[in-house]
């Protein structure tokens, strides 16, 4: 069954076109990669897919029904099932809240008791490789990668059906990155979560996403199974992306 579908999505800011008619279809439990030049519209497309923003033209369907307008009760009910890992954690973590409060909030919004909420925090932190002691800290007392992992823990906490992960491992070293990617793969496999993953790191997308869309100047220039797209790119832009990739020399 198709979980998420976008058709002919267009968006402009101050008359500058950002998305020029993009489409995608994602089935339940499937993974899709989104790559493209910096500023090509990946985050904007994600915000529209999440229903956070309305497209100027085109439509987004979730389980076959149109996405309700942002911040309406119907949209809020949906949001439990659609979660996002924001590209920059500093923008979504309230600087005045402790990690504990940030992680409890989604549970509170969805009516869980205080004791129940509290009991869940240690496991949420542990799965993203953070010691329980960070619960009492505020964002200003965490490293970049620690904040990124708090945001991931929060997005997964409500067991969404769909995760939009915007550069979810961009601040993480190789070992913690592997740990987080393993977690995401596990959640997709075991709970049937579908995922749209954005990354500037082609290795990440090739490994994580079954299919990939390549976005350039607001249009999809290439689309297909990820391995085919990256191992045998057809569009010159995809080829340039692959060729510009720094590599670790053979040891």
């Amino acid at each position: 069954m198709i979980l998420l579908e976008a058709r002919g999505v267009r968006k402009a800011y101050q008359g500058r076109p950002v998305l020029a008619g993009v489409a995608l279809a994602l089935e339940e439990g499937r993974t899709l990669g989104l790559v493209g030049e910096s500023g090509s519209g990946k985050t904007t497309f994600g915000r529209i897919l999440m229903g956070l923003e309305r497209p100027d033209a085109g439509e987004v369907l979730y389980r076959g029904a149109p996405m309700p307008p942002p911040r309406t009760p119907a949209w809020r009910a949906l949001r439990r099932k659609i979660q996002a890992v924001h590209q920059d954690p500093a923008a979504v973590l309230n600087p005045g809240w402790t990690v504990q409060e940030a992680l409890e909030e989604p549970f509170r919004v969805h009516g869980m008791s205080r004791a129940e909420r509290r009991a869940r925090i240690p496991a949420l932190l542990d799965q993203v490789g953070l010691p329980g002691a960070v619960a009492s800290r505020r964002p200003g007392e965490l490293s970049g990668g620690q904040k990124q992992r708090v945001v991931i823990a929060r997005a997964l906490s409500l067991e969404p059906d769909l995760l939009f992960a915007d550069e979810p491992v961009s601040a993480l070293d190789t070992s913690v990155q592997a740990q987080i990617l393993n977690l995401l793969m596990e959640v997709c496999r075991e709970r049937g979560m579908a995922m749209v993953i954005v990354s500037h790191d082609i290795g990440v997308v090739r490994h994580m996403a079954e299919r990939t869309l390549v976005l350039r100047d607001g249009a999809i220039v290439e689309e297909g199974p990820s391995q085919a797209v990256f191992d045998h790119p057809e569009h010159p832009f995809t080829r340039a992306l692959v060729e510009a990739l720094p590599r670790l020399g053979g040891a």
Partner: protein
Amino acid sequence: MSAALEARDLGIALAGGNPLVERLSFDLTAGRTLGLVGESGSGKSLTAQALLGLLPADRFEVTGSLRILGEAPRNWARLRGSVIAMVFQEPRLALNPRMEVGRQIAEALELHRGMARAEARREAARWLDRVGIASARAEDRPAAFSGGMLQRICIAMALAAGPRILVADEPTTALDATVQAQVLDLVGDLRRELGLAVLLITHDLPLAAQRCDDLLVLYAGRPMESGPTDRVLRRPRHRYTEALIACARFPEEAGTPLAAIPGQVPLVTPPSIPPCVFADRCRFAREDCLERPYTWFPEGHACFHPCGEAP
């Protein structure tokens, strides 16, 4: 030639608390790039901030010695920006959300290079262009830019002031490979032409392999290994470096579990001079690793049973 920046036995602790960074010594040299790598939470950003005197004295205790262009830094207001500039890990926090980005760069030029307003404005537009941002967007505020665009704006702002030393904290994590190459080529040009000394903090080992002359590997606030990039990546000596590199390659088959170092980096390093901080996660740990004090060996590492030696 003397170092542009010299850090000796640098230590950072929360006031009255355990150390977060310890025993860190390195040089930044004109025309060269030192890469600082290591696990998330190992103290890279704190180190960067300490180099610019940015850690608030009421919260942090910074020890050791720091020399910038041969002198102990005193007048930070004069040094910051014009002599030593920083690209912060989180660009959205580094920019003023209420001011047009062109104006923010122009202000830096007026302040650090004494330019008149009109000239600074033209120069700011030129710098935006050099990092691949249409100069027509100079009038926009930070909220109107993508994550990678903000990173480039911050890089432009740091470089425009013409510093001798650049401290760049994960500056290209939101840039696709082509734009990343463009921006780092620009830094490379300035390195060659103006002798810019660079500290590049990155978790991206292939990127480090391509752009850094030397590497310094940090773990739990302590140096583990240092040396020429090629040597460190091809023949690591410290077991932690080896483990970190082993996680860097994706297997051919997609969707398969990835190798990670089991366990977590400790949140604070234990008090006094502890033994190997990596011991609880190291496959090669032996009893003496927990008993002998931290030791920096002349071969440029801090491992008691280095790679290549029979375990």
